[in-house]
């Protein structure tokens, strides 16, 4: 038998090999390794092994100014918490602020100057060299002459009161028809109104809220990110002990209204009537301050006006019972109490006469300048006294040649239709937003600013605070290449503009100048987040030492409120015209005709309102029913039925301004015939994750003669198939 290899031989060899392999580690190890392999899901990102450190900064998503303690790994922040015992933030952050470290990685982030092919639907946005974009804007600017004034160059500042705001204003003063505009929701409505009513123009007030026992709020989102949220939450959570009482006058079943001890659900647009009605009861029952004739200049005229607003009349117009009106007037007359006006950011400002009627109640009750009332506060040292800013409704139509929209927060609270109306057809819109939101996409040029927590920023006094504060927001991320500091944008623009002679400071110099002024005043003390220690400013010998403390995350707080000076106020600053406008309200507003409903937009953006939010906020907007997604329409079940709609239905709303698709949500707490439509984060999706709708419901809102877009009418009906 020769050495022929048969098939059988090979099988024997293979059988032997199999046996050999079984007695080797190979199969057992492979089994174990494959099991481990299945656990190593390649889509699970690897975790950092870098050292853990703490960093301190300040949140700049809203003007609240809460202290941030960031846990970082390898210098990258992975978790934010409120800085313990922080004097402004009180150790807490809101839902939006807690995810603030993710804003720099927001999927909508743009880090490249862009230009749009037009403002129509389907316009294409393409990258453009930054210098070319600025040269193009400069060319428009150079082409302007005094003839194009009054308002050729306008800038909307989303967070007034910054050192940057002063630079913006300086720049605008050097260009033809420069106009400085602030968002209606950027300032506290009550205090700015009182400022207009005060005889002393430079008067600045704050709420001595801590001691207040009754707060009557006309639509202010008190428990949803109003004033300094940490302080409000603190006061709210201690109410069982302190007896703090919240009375909310609101048409919408907002969270604040639902939680308030008393909710006065008034008919849409009747705030003025209710406020004057309360004034009526206060005067009738002699509940007003005894020195009212001394602190006001037109008490007699006011008394004559409110005499017409007796409880039965007011009750019939507002839908609030006569007894509730009288009871509320008596409750707020038992001081310490405060009356505030406000609105959520998308809701649009209250009309002027509503704001004065509400603010006047404070004067009437004598809460002005008293403990637990509205007290004067010192201005921030070094803060230049500036004339009041303009609001967008005061600008003539088609008068703006260049509109620059500041990127702060990148939130939206002005209807695009309104902006569109104010800008000249050949005008250019420049957005400084770091995020490509639908509204940014509408601009002609985008020069994106660095994102939240990327740039050394500052934050001063929170709206409504009685003492000034100042803190730096230390960057937690490096600035992404391609983004442009708004200061650099102004500098580059000045360089290509013929007339602009202003020098734009560097960011460091701009902020140091403010810090130096505070240090020079010798007032106040600095809170240090590392150990909770307080350092007297007087104890810091040099301005450099003060700057160092601020850079480490310190928060400067002024000494107590300003010395109380007696200021007199006008209860009807608009005089006879205002009284006439108020009296006209008594004839009642016409109810929407036919199949129309009253539409009220409302904003739901994180807990504090006006900023864009991280996609992780989907937990509260999309993955639970806690808050409403953009385009949620709240209807009374009866109203829904009468339009053939049911909970969860897709519906179309339409009026002269536009058409919008909404999702119906029935809520028995909504007034019949009223639809509240949410403007807020949209559903996460790959194109625009978590972005706040740019137009949405605001596209249906057209500002009326009173400069507000709180109320509008539209038809509503079941959506069919592919309708937009």
């Amino acid at each position, binding site marked *: 038998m020769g050495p022929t290899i048969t098939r059988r031989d090979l099988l024997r*060899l293979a059988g*032997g090999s199999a*046996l*050999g392999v079984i*007695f080797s580690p190979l199969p057992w190890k492979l089994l174990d*390794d494959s099991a*481990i392999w299945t656990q190593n899901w390649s889509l699970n990102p690897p975790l950092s*092994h*870098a050292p853990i450190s703490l960093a301190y900064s300040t949140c700049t998503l809203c003007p609240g100014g809460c202290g941030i303690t960031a846990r970082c790994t390898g210098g990258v922040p992975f978790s934010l918490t409120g800085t313990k015992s922080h004097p402004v933030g009180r150790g807490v952050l809101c839902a939006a602020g807690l995810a603030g470290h993710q804003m720099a990685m927001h999927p909508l982030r743009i880090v490249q100057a862009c230009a749009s092919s037009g403002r129509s639907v389907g316009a294409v946005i393409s990258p453009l060299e930054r210098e070319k974009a600025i040269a193009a804007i400069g060319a428009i600017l150079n082409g302007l002459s005094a003839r194009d004034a009054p308002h050729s160059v306008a800038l909307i500042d989303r967070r007034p009161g910054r050192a940057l705001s002063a630079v913006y204003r300086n720049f605008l003063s050097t260009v033809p028809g420069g106009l400085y505009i602030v968002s209606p929701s950027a300032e506290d409505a009550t205090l700015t109104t009182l400022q207009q009513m005060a005889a002393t123009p430079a008067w600045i007030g704050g709420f001595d809220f801590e001691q207040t026992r009754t707060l009557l709020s006309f639509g202010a989102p008190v428990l949803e990110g109003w004033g300094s949220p940490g302080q409000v939450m603190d006061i709210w959570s201690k109410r069982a002990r302190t007896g703090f009482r919240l009375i909310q006058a609101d048409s919408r079943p907002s969270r604040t209204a639902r939680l308030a001890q008393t909710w006065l659900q008034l008919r849409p647009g009747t705030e003025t009537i209710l406020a004057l009605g309360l004034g009526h009861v206060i005067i009738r029952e002699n509940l007003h301050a005894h020195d009212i004739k001394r602190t006001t200049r037109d008490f007699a005229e006011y008394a004559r006006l409110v005499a017409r607003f007796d409880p039965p009349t007011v009750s019939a117009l507002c839908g609030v019972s006569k007894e509730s009106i009288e009871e509320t007037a008596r409750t707020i007359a038992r001081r310490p109490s405060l009356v505030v006006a406000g609105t959520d950011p998308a809701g649009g400002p209250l009309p002027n006469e509503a704001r004065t009627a509400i603010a006047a109640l404070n004067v009437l009750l004598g809460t002005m300048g008293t403990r637990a009332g509205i007290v004067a506060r010192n201005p921030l040292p070094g803060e230049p006294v500036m004339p009041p800013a303009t609001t967008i409704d005061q600008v003539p139509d088609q008068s703006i040649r260049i509109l620059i929209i500041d990127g702060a927060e990148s939130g939206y609270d002005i209807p695009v239709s309104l902006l569109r109306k104010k800008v000249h057809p050949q005008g250019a819109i420049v957005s400084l937003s770091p995020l490509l939101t639908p509204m940014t996409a509408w601009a002609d040029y985008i020069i994106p600013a660095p994102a939240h927590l990327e740039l050394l920023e500052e934050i001063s006094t929170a709206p409504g605070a009685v003492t000034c504060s100042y803190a730096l927001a230390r960057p937690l991320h490096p600035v992404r290449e391609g983004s442009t500091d708004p200061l650099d944008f102004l500098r580059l623009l000045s360089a290509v503009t013929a007339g602009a002679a202003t020098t734009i400071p560097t960011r460091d110099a701009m902020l140091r100048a403010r810090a130096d002024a505070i240090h020079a005043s010798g007032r106040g003390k600095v809170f240090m987040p590392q150990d909770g220690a307080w350092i007297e400013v007087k104890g810091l010998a040099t301005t450099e030492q003060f700057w160092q403390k601020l850079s480490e995350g310190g928060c400067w707080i002024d000494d107590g409120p300003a010395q109380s000076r007696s200021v007199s106020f006008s209860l009807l600053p608009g005089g006879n015209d205002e009284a006439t406008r108020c009296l006209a309200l008594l004839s009642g507003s016409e109810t929407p005709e036919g199949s129309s409903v009253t539409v009220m937009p409302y904003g739901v953006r994180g807990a504090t309102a006006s900023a864009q939010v991280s996609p992780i906020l989907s937990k509260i907007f999309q993955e639970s029913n806690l808050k409403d997604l953009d385009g949620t329409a709240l209807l009374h079940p009866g109203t829904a039925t009468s339009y053939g709609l049911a909970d969860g239905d897709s519906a179309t709303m339409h009026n002269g301004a536009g058409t919008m698709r909404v999702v119906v949500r029935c809520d028995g707490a909504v007034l019949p015939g009223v639809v509240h439509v949410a403007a807020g984060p949209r559903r996460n999706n790959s194109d625009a994750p978590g972005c706040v709708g740019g137009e949405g419901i605001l596209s249906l809102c057209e500002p009326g003669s009173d400069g507000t877009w709180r109320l509008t009418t539209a038809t509503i009906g079941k959506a069919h198939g592919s309708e937009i």
Partner: protein
Amino acid sequence: MKRRTLMLIIAGVALGAGTGWVLFPLALYTRESQPVNFSHKVHTGEQAGMTCENCHDFTADGRFSGIPALDKCTGCHGATIGSTDEEKRFVEEFVIPGRPVPWRVYSRQPDNAYFPHAAHVKLAGIACEECHGPHGAGDALPAYQANRLTGYSRDIWGRNISGIPSHPWEGMKMDRCVRCHALQGRTDGCIDCHK
């Protein structure tokens, strides 16, 4: 005939076993050298006299730093202090540009395993060598071998492919944790060691 069959089977067994014992580990693991040939021996013992905890230390919050970050090295090696070429290269390539050294970690566990050094070293009093072996006396760093299937270091399974440790410190798989914890009479939940 019978003899030939037996021979063939024995040859097969040898072939199979050889594959499993010798070729398989060669195929399963990659071999990478460390970016710097660090000598523990030079730093410890009689030479520089440092202990493990001088470099592999704890932070104040109880975390173990593992392989020290570059600044720990820079503390002494801000400039070349020895005479070796390797140190000179280390200073030039990493210290001066401030580039972190991309060390490969022999004992890196999966992300879902949690091992508190503080509890084992400070409370249980386990010496470093009991788990990490006497590498503190080694003059050269062994090649880092990664499992091609799982991506983990060979030292987790142990150098011996059979899984039977040739030294008591070899192997860092869960069974080893469990065995020791059982001997201590500990009652643990899953999440005590998993995160």
